[in-house]
């Protein structure tokens, strides 16, 4: 927590950077939530170390209290403590998997957008067809064949979530290609590679960064869904999906916090990411200020 002397300038900075109108407190709250989530999960091993395998069988299913903010689960483990580490894993997996998906989608969309014509039509038909595959089923198939592990989960998310990025990059490139500055560069003697790297990429990158950010919540949902089904991260590891899965038994006996508290963490953090990304998109494209976010 920042001390009082630095807080107002920080808020002011955030306001001016995001061009906040008064009343857009949702964005500020989302930013703070995300800041706490990221800093918290980065610093957790230093300030609040967790023994992943520790259990306390004399303190099972305790209701939330001041000593156990989110209660304890059926093995007496502190739910809030493990949720911090679960969030850490989820954000890590989400960010890496979103990057993988962005690279895949960027390459496919880039080829389609740069070459245009027949290749573009073919690639986009392919994307449309692949979009008809239920991506959870495909993701389950991938982890089942690779055996559940961190790498399998990342592969599962990356291989199933690149389609939207491919579409975004492709349509960006197609519209950019017809703009006068690209004609000017070509008539100035720039080759295809130079046009791509010096003139087109700088325009596409902000979109790509936004697409990656918007992907993180999806990656987190996918990862937690796999873990919830028992197909994701190793069961002893404190991950949000594993915790929700483990907590099901407790939930049925009335200890709802073991499952619902880790889930609430997912809801709050992904909502915060979505709110910030929506604001970011409005700034990228002020002409079509979307009232519809996400």
């Amino acid at each position, binding site marked *: 927590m920042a001390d009082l002397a630095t807080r107002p300038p920080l808020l002011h900075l955030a306001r001016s950077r995001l061009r906040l109108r008064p009343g857009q407190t949702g964005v500020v709250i989302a930013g703070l939530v995300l800041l706490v989530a990221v800093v918290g999960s980065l610093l957790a091993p230093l300030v609040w170390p967790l023994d992943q395998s520790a259990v306390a069988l004399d303190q099972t299913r305790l209701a939330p209290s001041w000593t156990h903010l989110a209660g304890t689960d059926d093995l007496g483990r502190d739910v809030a403590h493990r949720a911090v580490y679960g969030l850490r894993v989820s954000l890590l997996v989400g960010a890496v998997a979103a990057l993988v998906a962005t690279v895949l989608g960027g390459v496919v969309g880039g080829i389609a957008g740069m070459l245009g014509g027949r290749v573009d039509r073919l690639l986009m038909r392919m994307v449309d067809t692949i979009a008809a595959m239920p991506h959870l089923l495909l993701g389950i198939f991938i982890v089942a064949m*690779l055996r559940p592990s961190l790498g399998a989960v990342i592969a599962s998310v990356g291989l199933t979530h690149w389609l939207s990025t491919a579409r975004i990059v492709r349509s960006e490139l197609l519209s950019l290609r017809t703009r006068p500055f690209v004609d000017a560069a070509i008539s100035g003697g720039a080759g295809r590679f130079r046009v791509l790297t010096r003139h087109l990429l700088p325009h596409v990158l902000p979109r790509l960064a936004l697409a990656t950010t918007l992907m993180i919540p999806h990656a987190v949902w996918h990862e937690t869904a796999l873990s919830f089904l028992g197909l994701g991260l190793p069961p002893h590891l404190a991950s949000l999906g594993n915790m929700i899965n483990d907590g099901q038994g407790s939930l049925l006996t009335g200890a709802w916090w073991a499952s619902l508290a880790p889930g609430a963490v997912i809801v709050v953090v992904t909502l915060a990411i979505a709110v910030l990304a929506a604001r970011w998109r409005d700034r990228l494209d002020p002409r079509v200020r979307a009232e519809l976010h996400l």
Partner: protein
Amino acid sequence: MTRSGRLAGAGAVVRRRLLVAVPVLAATSIGMFALGAASPVDPAKQYAGAAAFTASEENLAQIRANWGVDDPLPVQYLRWIGNLVQGDLGWSTSRHEPVASVLSARAGWTLLLIGVALALALVGSLLLGSLAAYRRGGLFDRALRTAAYAVQSMPVFWLGLAAIAVFALALGWFPAGGLTDVTATSTSWADVAHHLILPVGVLAVSQAPWFVLFVRDAVAESMRDDHVLAARARGLPGRTVLFGHALRTALLPFLTLVGTHLPELVGGAVLVETVFSLPGLGAVTVAAALGSDFPLLAAITLVTTAVVLAANLTTDLAYAAADPRVRLDG
């Protein structure tokens, strides 16, 4: 264009779609097969189960020979895909029965869950989205949008567990899972319906935000159309303007988008079935995944994809038939 001309166009569209879908599905099946072949699980030992620890090398070799798992991979692939195309979906190694009989015994419940939830989500979102669009920026609009964003960030299995905690455990209105009462000796429709209310509701609510936000935007857009303004100027009642004029214009494009949302719905159904212990495809999919049951998983994935593709094609063709201005280029 004449009606017969449009229908001839439909034939070309079907051909073009198949021309892309078949190679893509073939490529996907090769990718899936390669992944299955690279999997560290030994199918012979998996088939033998616990007996693999005591089975002799000859017995395992016999199983291998029977299954043809030592043949070259292209041969194995062609055998698998050839059988698949001819309708033989293979043998499920996790359930020890033909994949086709697993699917036929279970798909009905999943289809019922998806169908009713989709219908509920559609009706609800058309109603709520239109009402929100009527007074854009009003209290109801803002509340609905906030709720939609909030629900959108809730994983469907978490929503299901929360529903169980509230409606099954705290209030005791509905059962927490299963399809029939544990004491029931026969299956009665009333009992099944009572058990399905919560799962169907959870699936519908979890899918609704996307629909609601789309309807709200589309109707808000068409509220500005000339014919809607004209209807208002003639002094027609608000309800007629909203549902008879504005929603009607927005309805067709919306219905085609429903098809693209089906894969999402299938994934949601798998998770909801798991939460509520329903005997649909979700439970077998998870069990198959835990047992690395390649034939069953591959068949479920490819069959659902084919069904979604067919549904998309049908909605697109219906759209083109309903609106003569629409031309399909794909």
